[in-house]
């Protein structure tokens, strides 16, 4: 037990990071029926922006700047690459998303010269070591799940109890009828991307501050894992994405704790295959056949 405990704690933390990314996938899917393949790259860009801003600016300027830049990026991606395809077949939208993903990676390659950018100024306080159950760990490990839960609670409140949330739920079900209520669909979709990007940016701060460097494909793996978490939980469902992310995070770390580190990634993707075969709607997904 004593040996497994740090892995459990780590698992909850990793799960929180996946959850913050997974919500972005699931929100966008819920409203546009689109797997936003660029989401992992948005996460990576947030990491790069963090590296650049924290080295040049004081923390209290740098961190808000990361959030703002990422949110703007998410907003612009939707307006430029997805909005013109509103009435196009869904496949076109998906291909556009893949295009955006490669575009961002290549732009990042151009800017960084392909060299992973070292994280030289980790975020203070959360990067400090603390003792937990006799084990030394970074404080971010504890902060991540708490912050994740707080943000999820806030998001659920927004969706269930505010005017914008009501508009989002209506638009997710029926674009046309939502419009007949006076809801501006494009504004709702923009807000969805803004929220998704904001959470990804928070996730990136928590994730990369513990990381040696940020490279152009650094978003790919966490992005994919979070995507699996969203599918596992039932894509389109926010509680599903969060629960799925925590389960995957815990499982991965437990597998590492048992000494099978090489298999931890394989486990996640095997899980994806099993879920798609056995229960394609995931844990909390709706029973609609016309999906994915």
């Amino acid at each position: 037990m004593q040996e497994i405990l740090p892995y459990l704690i780590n698992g909850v933390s990793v799960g929180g990071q996946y959850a913050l990314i997974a919500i972005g996938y699931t929100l966008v899917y819920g409203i546009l029926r689109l797997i936003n393949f660029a989401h992992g790259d948005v996460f990576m860009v947030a990491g790069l922006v963090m590296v650049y801003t924290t080295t040049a600016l004081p923390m209290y300027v740098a961190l808000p700047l990361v959030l703002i830049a990422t949110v703007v990026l998410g907003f612009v991606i939707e307006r430029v690459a997805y909005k013109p395809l509103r009435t196009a077949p869904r496949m076109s939208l998906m291909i556009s998303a893949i295009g955006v993903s490669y575009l961002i990676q290549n732009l990042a390659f151009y800017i960084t010269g392909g060299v992973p950018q070292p994280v030289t100024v980790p975020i203070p306080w959360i990067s400090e070591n603390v003792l937990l159950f006799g084990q030394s760990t970074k404080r971010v490990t504890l902060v991540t799940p708490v912050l994740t839960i707080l943000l999820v609670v806030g998001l659920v409140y927004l969706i269930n109890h505010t005017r914008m949330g009501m508009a989002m739920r209506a638009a997710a079900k029926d674009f046309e009828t939502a419009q007949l209520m006076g809801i501006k669909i494009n504004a709702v979709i923009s807000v969805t991307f803004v929220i998704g990007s904001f959470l990804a940016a928070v996730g990136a701060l928590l994730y990369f501050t513990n990381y040696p460097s940020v490279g152009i494909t650094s978003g790919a793996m966490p992005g994919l894992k979070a995507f699996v978490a969203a599918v596992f939980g039932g894509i389109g469902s926010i509680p599903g994405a969060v629960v799925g992310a925590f389960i995957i995070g815990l499982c991965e770390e437990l597998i590492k704790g048992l000494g099978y580190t090489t298999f931890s990634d394989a486990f996640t993707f095997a899980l994806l295959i099993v879920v798609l075969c056995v229960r394609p709607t995931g844990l909390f997904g709706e029973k609609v056949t016309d999906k994915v």
Partner: protein
Amino acid sequence: MLKIENLHVAYGGIQALRGISLEVPDGKIVTLIGANGAGKSTTLRTISGLVKAQSGSIQWNGEELLGKPIDRIISAGIAMSPEGRRVFADMTVLENLKIGAYLRRDRAEIQRDLEWVYDLFPRLKERSWQLAGTLSGGEQQMLAVGRALMSRPRLMMLDEPSLGLAPLVVQDIFSIIREINRQGVTVLLIEQNANMALKTADLAYVLETGSITLSGTGAELLANEKVKEAYLGKHS
């Protein structure tokens, strides 16, 4: 008053409306009847802004509606209860009604209109915490009408409100339509049930493949031989 002039609408290459003109005077019940695909729904969808017109004009109290975004058209006092009811199935009855007032900010007045809708449809009040998807077809239609009323429209457009409902329920729906009209809301009604629609309406238009072929008062069209033969299933 709503005044449509020479309205042309096409979907892709298909001409859905070929220059229709019609008027919906204030305080009246006006109905459009016609077969499937005649362009009835297209007319309502164009008025509400869901569909773009090629040419023509739609004037609402002298103001041009064509080219205006949907939310502006709703704010101008036009609401629509869509075909197939389209209530938000996983929201409660109360939430469905509240979302009908989405564009309004006057809380006290919204509350008053909510009471008004509950008075019109006591059944909705009983079920206000139930999910809309669990309601019967007739109750869902009442909810769709109530939801549209929550924007406090001066013109209410109803797309096939009787579709798929039992005859007794259809009677209920039509008596509610008359009641809403009595309370000062102008009604533009689309129906396959031409008999009921013509009996209810002050004015009626017959649409055939995108053109208006006949018009008159409801009573006139009820007595019209062509209408009887084509839409009322009576052979003289």
